[in-house]
């Protein structure tokens, strides 16, 4: 991690301090992650005496057992279904609303937009009991939609604001010209707005996906059947079953966070942009 060696004066105290500081923080971040990855390759006995170092004997069995069990894949599948539902619905519903707010003038427009942004003010947890009762009364308890629909509803405020801001930058003359030429609003939305807005759609999609993929409270309240559990719930059940067999739990954690880390490495730009977007532009 000593990347500051490019400094011209090798013994500049400021540079030395900076390198030292960055190295310390890097260790602080990396050690728990590496210990988790490596812990999955150790036996329980070795974990106790050697939690930091490389395994003396690599136990591939821990990882193999999980990868060849149906359980791991079922959890990922459930998470993927819920997240995909949430992202798809959010993008469709939010982009339609954002388009209306950006391009269609009507009485009460700003009032309705303010109404939607109320959703930014409080966490889903505040109303989770009534939400549970509502989802139950709708017959959606213990279904994927019972988790996805509230997630969509809670991500709408942010998504509509980000999308609207982007849509507004599409020149209004373009819309007017299209309308004069007999194109409808809906066709304009479908064939002009959406294709031009890929970057912001990717950003909003990424935020929604990461939030849904990692979510715990809503699935915990809405789902009762193990077979439907997304991975954050499943891993808690797994930890309950293997309470102190840390080598197995660590292997399981590593495998469940692996998709997130791969996605992060592949889509760094969108993720960083997405998760800090509201902030920077706000």
């Amino acid at each position, binding site marked *: 991690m000593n990347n500051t060696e490019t400094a011209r004066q090798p013994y500049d105290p400021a540079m030395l301090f900076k390198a030292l500081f960055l190295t310390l923080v890097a260790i602080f971040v990396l050690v728990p992650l590496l210990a988790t990855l490596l812990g999955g390759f150790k036996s329980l006995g070795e974990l106790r005496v050697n*939690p*930091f170092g490389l395994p003396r004997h690599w136990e591939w069995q821990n990882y193999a057992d999980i990868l060849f069990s149906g359980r791991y894949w079922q959890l990922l599948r459930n998470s993927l279904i819920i997240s995909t539902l949430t992202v798809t619905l959010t993008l469709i519903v939010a982009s339609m*609303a954002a388009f209306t707010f950006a391009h*269609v003038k009507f009485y009460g427009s*700003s009032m309705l937009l303010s109404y939607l942004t109320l959703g930014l003010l409080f966490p889903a947890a505040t109303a*989770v009991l009534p939400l549970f009762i509502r989802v139950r009364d709708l017959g959606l308890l213990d279904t994927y939609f019972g988790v996805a629909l509230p997630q969509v509803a*809670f991500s*709408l405020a942010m998504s509509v604001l980000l999308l609207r801001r982007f849509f507004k930058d599409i020149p209004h003359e373009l819309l007017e010209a299209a309308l004069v030429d007999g194109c409808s609003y809906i066709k304009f939305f479908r064939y002009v707005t959406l294709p031009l807005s890929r970057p912001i759609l990717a950003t909003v999609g990424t935020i929604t996906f990461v939030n849904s993929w990692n979510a715990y409270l809503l699935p915990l309240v809405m789902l009762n059947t193990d077979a439907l559990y997304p991975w954050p719930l499943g891993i808690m059940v797994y930890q309950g079953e293997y309470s102190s067999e840390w080598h197995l739990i660590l292997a399981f954690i590593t495998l469940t966070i692996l998709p997130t880390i791969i996605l992060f490495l592949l889509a760094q730009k969108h993720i960083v942009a997405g*998760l800090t977007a509201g902030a920077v532009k706000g």
Partner: protein
Amino acid sequence: MARRIAIASPVSIAGEAPPQVAVRGPGWDGRFTVLILFLPPALLLFTLFVVLPIGEAAWYSGFNWNGFGKPTNWIGFDNYRFVLETRAFWLALRNNGLIIAVSLAMQLPLALTLALMLAEKFRGAVALRMLFFMPYILAEIATGLIFSFVYDGDYGLVASIWRTFGAEPPHLLASTDTAMLAVLIVIVWKYFGFHMMLFIAALQSLDKSLIEAARIDGATRAQTLRHVVIPLLYPTIRLSVFFAIVGSLQLFDLVMPLTRGGPADSSNTMVSFLYNNGISRMRVGYGSAIGVILFAICVTFAFTYKRWFMRDE
């Protein structure tokens, strides 16, 4: 933390786009179709799953109700009295205060220092940025489990360090004295990277000519930092503080795998207190009262903060 990021209050949105009076004319039919087709899905979902539940929470909080059948046992404001008389509620509130304090006193300076170091270009700067941001995208559940291993008194990393010094390892998460401290360290580990990224983004969009001007006028690096760069970052600092506070009020997932709010409620946050006392026992009235209190805190805070600190943005 910033699960849903608050970026603008309804008030500022209203100011941004003055109400337009609809004028009938060419295109009205097309507009009408869009309004009928495009707005209702969002408004319906939002009303059904966000707004109505909040209203219902206020209504249910007047009942002693287990969630089955119709609520009939009206007890007025007793649920609120019960909540306020619970010691665990005040502990949870104190813990939320602690989280905010640690965010301000440790996380923010750490994030700012790292941002100042990493905003400059050098080999490895981008890799380090990504590394420091990575904890933020990991699920809170996974982070909590990783650290419950780190803190484990038998197998964990902390235990191993203790043993090399020949001491009997402590069970940090099982003691009322240390559980909250342990949670606070995890919070810093997980969230400092997010705040660092906010500062880096702000630093990169700073007007460089101001800094150059200060240097030309003979200001030292430290003086430039103190009198030019930091003041230019004030809006971002205010934003970062805002996120830290909002995040603390939502914190739940991270606490569950670590301590479940225990031992003896010593590490509950507001939301884990709500979960342990309302949701997991289906005490709908009592839980709704906690929810309404949390809602009131969030809304009051958001409006006050915007009014006092973020007026100009």
